[in-house]
């Protein structure tokens, strides 16, 4: 009986090792990507099948863009906080509110322009097909307004009010409307 128990325990241990081995083998590429300096760039490398030269060039551009991005983010947070404060304290759409809104919109435009510029810089490094696919992907994720009351998931206008615009159907109350 003791011998059988040992066999059962050893079998279970072997099965656990087998499970771990297969899981580790399948997820090896993602684990390696997560350990790199820029895991998100590893996704880009895989998705657009970048060569080592293309990848190095894109990484440099990405790091340079990050500096610009940080500055834009800081400014955007500032104008966003100003707008929030002005909207909270003003009971009507006063001149002050309009001014804060204009500053916020202007800053968002600067941000979108910076993203578009970076997108073109990155796509210029890629093969033609990959570049087109990359631009389309960025456009869908970042440029198309996310959840607008009359714009469907396909990006087309619809007369009927779309449910995703209902306040409780989305976590965010910040649709891209500039």
């Amino acid at each position: 009986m003791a011998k059988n128990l040992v066999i059962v325990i050893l079998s279970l241990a072997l099965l656990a090792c087998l499970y771990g081995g297969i899981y580790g083998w399948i997820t090896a590429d993602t684990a390696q990507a997560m350990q790199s300096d820029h895991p998100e760039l590893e996704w880009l490398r895989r998705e657009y099948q970048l060569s080592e030269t293309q990848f190095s060039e894109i990484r440099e551009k990405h790091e340079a863009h990050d500096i610009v991005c940080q500055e834009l983010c800081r400014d955007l947070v500032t104008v966003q906080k100003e707008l929030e404060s002005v909207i909270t304290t003003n009971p009507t759409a006063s001149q002050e509110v309009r001014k804060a809104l204009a500053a916020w919109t202007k800053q968002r435009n600067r941000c979108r322009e910076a993203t578009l510029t970076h997108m073109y810089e990155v796509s210029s490094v890629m093969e033609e097909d990959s570049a087109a696919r990359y631009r389309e992907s960025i456009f869908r994720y970042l440029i198309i307004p996310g959840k607008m009351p009359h714009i469907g998931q396909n990006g087309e206008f619809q007369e009927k009010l779309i449910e995703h615009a209902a306040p409780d159907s989305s976590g965010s109350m910040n649709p891209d409307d500039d």
Partner: protein
Amino acid sequence: MMKDEEQIPELKEWGLHLPDDPHFHSSVWREIAMRDATSPANRVREFFERLFTPGFAIPAASAAILAVMLSASLHGLRSREKTWESLSLSYNSAIDPISHTEAISFSRSKH
């Protein structure tokens, strides 16, 4: 357990005809002993003993290996898919200041 002298009058009372063969009595007692031996605990023990016979152990081990391989593969593929998906969103967020700021605003509004 009842003995012959207690059991036989009882069985006769029920109208059962018992053969006089002495072997019959011993085989009845043997049958009763065997049935007693098949208690739930004994059945469990027998089941585990059967597990270690080649006829049962080989198919059971094969099935366990297949099940482990299948579940590990499915788990790994799902996890891999989720990681790439999350990295794709990270990339989009990393290059777009608005996504950054909205993420901050959203996390502030949640707290």
